């Protein structure tokens, strides 16, 4: 386990910024109440075996006691670096993203399953959408009962969405909670 270097940190923050915007500050400076220490520590990012984890400092301190090859994971995984060195967010970061998301989309009950199978979000399945979405913004997908289902990238702005026909793609799928079942081995 090692902390992220400059390049990696910029990559991670860029990706996060697409989804959470100015709430990035909240993520980075979130006080953590874990551990015996009365003063809340902070959260930080650590890299272990090409995966990036979001951990509280108290936990990091204790995790240094474990040997590197024996450490499987710690805290919450938010993404991983591919072989070519690009950073990708994985589904385990959903809770963190959903709490701080700027752009949200709510799905109608009929099209929830379609998204959970890995398909893109069509306009006909759209229940609600926050305004001010621009193309290539990170969007978190919720069900109508406010449960986060996954996230993706916006294909069109909100304004264009109004005029689209019902079969147009609104959000391009990136990750969903169905992956816990489908891609259990790869996570």
């Amino acid at each position, binding site marked *: 386990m090692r902390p992220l270097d400059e390049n990696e940190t910029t990559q991670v923050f860029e990706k996060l910024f697409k989804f959470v915007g100015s*709430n990035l500050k909240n993520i980075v400076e979130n006080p953590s*109440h874990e551990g015996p220490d009365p003063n809340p520590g902070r959260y930080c990012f650590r890299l272990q075996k090409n995966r990036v984890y979001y951990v509280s400092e108290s936990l990091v301190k204790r995790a240094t006691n474990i040997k590197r090859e024996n450490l499987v994971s710690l805290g919450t995984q938010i993404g991983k670096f591919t072989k070519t060195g690009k950073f990708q967010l994985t589904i385990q970061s959903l809770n963190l993203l959903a709490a701080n998301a*700027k752009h949200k989309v709510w799905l109608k009950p009929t099209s929830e399953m379609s998204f959970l199978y890995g398909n893109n979000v069509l306009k006909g399945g759209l229940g609600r959408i926050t*305004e001010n979405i621009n193309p290539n913004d990170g969007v978190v997908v919720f069900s109508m009962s406010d449960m986060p289902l996954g996230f993706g990238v916006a294909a069109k702005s909100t304004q264009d*969405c*109004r005029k689209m026909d019902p079969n147009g793609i609104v959000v391009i799928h990136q990750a969903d909670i169905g992956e816990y079942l489908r891609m259990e081995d790869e996570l």
Partner: protein
Amino acid sequence: MRKKQKQKIVLPPELPPEVPDDEIQVSDEDLQFVDQNRDYAGFVSNLDTKSITKHVTRVADVKDDALESMYERRLRKKSADKDKEEDEVEVDPVDALPVKTLDGKLYYRTVPSAAKKSETEATAASEDNGTATPMVKLTKAEKRAKQKKLRKEAKKQVKETAQSDEVRQAPQSEVLDEVKKELTAEEANEKKKYRLAELGTALLVDPESNIKSLREMLQIAKDGDHSIVILGLKSLLAVFKDILPGYRIRLPTEKEQQMLVSKAVKKTRLYESTLLTAYKAFVQKLIALEEQAVYKRVAMRCICTLLEAVPHFNFRDNLLVAVVKGISSQDDVVRKLCCATVKSLFEHEGKHGGEATVEAVKMIAELVKVHNCQLHPDSIDVFMSLSFDEDLGKPESSEVDNKTKMKNSKKKRKLVEPNKLPASENKRSRQEIISKTREEVKADYKAASFAQDVAERRRMQSDTLSAVFQTFFRILKHAMQSLASSMGESFSLPLLAPCLNGIGKFSHIIDLDFMADLMNYLRKLAGAGSQKNDSHHLTVSERLQCCIVAFKVMKNNLEALNVDLQEFFVQLYGLILEYRPGRDKGEVLAEALKIMLCDDRQHDTQRAAAFVKRLATFSLSFGSAESMAALVTLRHLLHKNAKCRNLLENDAGGGSVSGGIAKYNPYATDPGLSGALASVLWELNLLTKHYHPAVSTMASSISTMNTVGNQVSHSNISPQQAFVQLSHEHESFIPASNTKKTSNKRKKGCRLSFPISSASKDELMTLADENAVRNKLSEHFLILDNIVENERLRTELYCTNMSLKLCEQYRKQKKRIR
């Protein structure tokens, strides 16, 4: 007819005085002139003087005796005049204007030199007046007027004599002049008023024949005296209102005028042209008078009444210009008149076929542009009375239908034609004839009927709508610019409130393209005041209005897309804290709560919980009206979002439902990040002890919501109604006087039992004796001061006691050590 009557016998004019030839002296120059121009001047010698004198001196149809008597009478009259002139002092025309009889003779005002003579002379004068006028047939009205005038003159002369009897003559003549002038002015005014009345009634009875009297009325209205002019204008207004026909007058062209037409048509043409010229003069006069401050209100009133009564008639544009100018005038009366007129124009479109609406709206838009949005809010308020067809926003469907129909029909025709060609051509030609005649009939019917073409109407309405929205966007832009640019300067946005109202009303017709811009503007305006620098910001009410309008627009366009207005919720969350009861309008806040929180179907749980918590805090801090509104909203939210009900449980930390955030952050700006699910609604406990019974019952019912279940039917009043019910004006309950319950002995001396009966606030102040209140209050505060002093002294005493004890102990210890 007149030739058969007795003709006026005109005596030949008097010959110039005879001068004997000897005394005539001709100057040398004249002689020279005649010598040089003999050709011209030669005719003089060829005159036949005798025949000329014979011609001149003969009088037709009069016998000798009569002739003699006539000559004698003439001489007598001359002498009488001379006598009169000798006796009386002629008044300078500058002081008192002469009177002109119908004959055309001028009678100068004269002051009677001798008191006794004046009476007889007055009668003589009136007699002469009577005989001097020609024997023309007078209309009854004119006779009446003349008789009235005569009577008045006689009366006046009598009055004058009475006055002159009492007063000395020479030094008082000037005073007499002035008095006479006033009297004559009054008399003249009275006469003019009667004249106006007569002309007016005559016109109303039979406008066609008496149309020329309009000119006279106009003439009277040009008088110098204010009251006469005003009366003239008003009577003209009444006449025109009734006379003007229900159609626009189009004057006949050159060609038409040359055509031979029947008498009736000529008569109508004449009538119409006179009417039109008179009306034109009237309108011009009104518009000219409107500039002058004296006549402003009267002229405005006339213009407004005319516009309301006959908006279809000619010169409507000029009237409209004047009215629209007056819409933003400083004068309250004028402004209200104009606004009422414009509103009635908008509402009664049937009278003028919609064109006036378009023009008026365009003119108002111009006005806003010119004045850079600094007008009185009433000027935009008139837009609220506009109404549009419901399907104005969807013109494409009909066009598409038409197109498809056209295509279909074309296809059918193409298919049909080749088949029918071999068939009989007679049939086809007959069908063509039939269809042609049908179309002709249709066209005639359309021309005859006054129903408006649908397309025409739609075009006019879309013109109006675009002008209206142009104005609204201009106002919004101006607001944005002034917010952005002015740093520290105070600026006013008077038009913003009615503009927002208008947008809210017409939001369902707005085009989708504009909606993005509109939402942008609204978002910026709503967020304008949240900056820390207090130099420029919108008031809380205005920002609330922006949020409300944004939601209305969104709701009306639901079929387009259901957009979640995150930004506005953030603004509302902040505005609830910034609200101050005296400064901001509670009704606007209540409306905002209703529209944004109660009507909305779906809410983010965190967001809803955040609002619940903040509303509870809010209701603790303000009066009963706001508390009630907040509590109603609170209950509604808790009802809708079941997960928020764990706020009612005493479970700090939120347990498993708290979402991502473990601790409640009361000062968070974003409701989604406040962590309210981790808090508890302890405020409800305090609210159950509120002094107002309604608030306390509501609070207790909310706190037992989880346990009791939905058995108790909650009254579904909106926060606005709750607010109105409990606002101060309806303060009508008696709080239980809890003087016995105060066990606090310190406050014994200041018990103020105040049974607030249903008396209003003002009466309350007078009921309570101010002095008694003051005394009680001073007592109370004295006691408080004493208590504070007491405590301070006690603590000092305690301190000194402790230090003394310490000293003693120290000494004891020292002793022990020793």
